[in-house]
């Protein structure tokens, strides 16, 4: 992989030459092509979509729908009606929870895992509470496989799980987990959080056999303000919409309204047009990479990071065996917040806190961790700067 070339594709590095950005798990940096594509919309054809009969609007609609097709192809989805856009993954999870609410009953079970980001945890917890359902949080075994025993799978209606942990970087074998779960109960619905996966591996929603796959565009080198919900066609054709209003209707009578066909049914109001088009461009950018090359480069970077962090006896690492894009750690005797403050002096950007995973941090027995997460632009030299910063932490706190 031509990393030097890759870094030069991201204009933020020209403006911040000393930047050591290790927080792509929070949001990825943006390549110039994505910014140019969004600016092109705003300067050349910034009309609304699906509404006008004039050239600008037609072009905007075509570009928007082309981006939808790109997302469908990116996820290996078989039908573009399965892709709808929202604001971000959090909104997507809330939307799915909202859509299913009326079909769930007291005594049913919602299952999630201890690794989940709050966005794929809190909506289900709230739904379970509203509907007097059982809310179960699965843990992991010593070998890092999901402990699927001791669950009354026959009563499970929803299984919500992440593909990659945003704290430990653990990559779940989602396909296998879904196979096991659906063998036990073919009717359960599986909602997968792809936020930390999409920038790092090929995703095939058909092979995965999930029912919903959700991610945020800004974690795939796209702009903020756009999220993707892939829903299996059998659901989109029959399920009610979540938000209602403009653009998603068929016929609006005085007393009742019919809905548009999917995907418009799930896109009420003016969508984030520029952002969707920008996401399409981000997918073009990422499609230029060889996933196997990406995987092997990330593995190399992760091994190097583990090696450097391991040199410090005061550093305790939280990382899955198969992690390659995310790793978190604590420095004994120093709060993560202080670690982050001092690393910032070296231009090193990391996230500190609980990374929207309070249940996971309770399970790990720590109040806060420092997280390193990679993007396509990171290098061994970035990790060296991180190490240098950590030595300064140790020195200041006299550990």
């Amino acid at each position, binding site marked *: 992989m031509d990393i030097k070339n890759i870094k030069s594709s991201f204009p933020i590095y020209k403006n911040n030459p000393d930047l050591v950005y290790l927080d792509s798990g929070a949001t990825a940096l943006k390549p110039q092509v994505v910014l140019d594509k969004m600016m092109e919309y705003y300067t050349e054809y910034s009309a609304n979509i699906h509404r006008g009969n004039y050239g600008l609007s037609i072009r905007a609609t075509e570009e928007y729908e082309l981006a939808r097709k790109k997302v469908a192809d990116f996820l290996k989805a078989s039908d573009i009606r399965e892709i709808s856009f929202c604001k971000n993954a959090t909104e997507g999870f809330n939307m799915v929870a909202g859509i299913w609410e009326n079909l769930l009953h007291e005594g049913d079970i919602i299952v999630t895992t201890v690794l989940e980001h709050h966005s794929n945890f809190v909506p289900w917890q709230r739904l379970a509470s509203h509907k007097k359902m059982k809310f179960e949080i699965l843990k992991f075994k010593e070998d890092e496989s999901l402990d699927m025993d001791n669950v009354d799978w026959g009563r499970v209606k929803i299984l919500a799980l992440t593909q990659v942990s945003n704290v430990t970087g653990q990559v779940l074998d989602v396909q296998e987990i879904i196979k096991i779960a659906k063998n036990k109960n073919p009717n359960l619905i599986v909602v997968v959080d792809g936020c930390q996966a999409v920038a790092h591996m090929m995703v095939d929603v058909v092979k995965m056999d999930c029912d919903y796959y959700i991610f945020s565009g800004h974690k795939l080198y796209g702009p903020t303000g756009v999220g993707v919900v892939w829903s299996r066609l059998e659901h989109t054709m029959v399920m009610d919409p979540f938000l209602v209003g403009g653009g998603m209707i068929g016929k609006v009578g005085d007393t009742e309204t019919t809905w548009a066909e999917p995907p418009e049914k799930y896109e009420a109001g003016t969508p984030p047009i520029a952002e969707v088009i920008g996401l399409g461009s981000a997918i073009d950018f990422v499609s230029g990479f060889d996933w196997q090359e990406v995987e092997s480069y990330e593995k190399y970077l992760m091994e190097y990071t583990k090696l450097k962090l391991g040199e410090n006896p005061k550093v305790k690492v939280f990382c899955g065996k198969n992690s390659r894009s995310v790793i978190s750690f604590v420095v004994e005797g120093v709060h*993560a*917040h*202080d670690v982050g403050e001092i690393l910032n002096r070296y231009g090193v950007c990391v996230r500190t806190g609980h990374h929207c995973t309070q249940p996971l941090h309770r399970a790990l027995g720590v*109040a806060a961790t420092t997280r390193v997460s990679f993007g396509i632009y990171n290098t061994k030299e970035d990790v060296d700067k991180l190490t240098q910063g950590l030595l300064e932490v140790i020195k200041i*706190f006299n550990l």
Partner: protein
Amino acid sequence: MDNLYQQQILDHYKDPQNFGELNKECRCAEHNNPSCGDAIEMSICVKDEKIADIKFKGQGCAISMASTSMLTEKIKGMSVSEFKKMDYADIETMLGIPLSSARKRCAYLGFEVAKQILADYS
């Protein structure tokens, strides 16, 4: 010497004053910063309109712990009315270090808990 992590801050962080089990006979309160995991619990007893007993426990960054430790030293024995005249600027003066907007919340945490406990006292 480090601008932020000055010796006084590090000393209070490593050996916080008035730290330990809360006095259950006193009024207690707690606050936390959900974004970073700082959490402080405090107990304050008022006698003859003065802060007679003050204890805190919790976990947090060096700034939140040091600030709370320094605050408890400062206000122990202080009259409630004098405490109520204190504001965030006093906390920053007490710490004597430059605080970014991100770290101000850490610095104010103990003060917020104390304010909550003493809110009902006139």
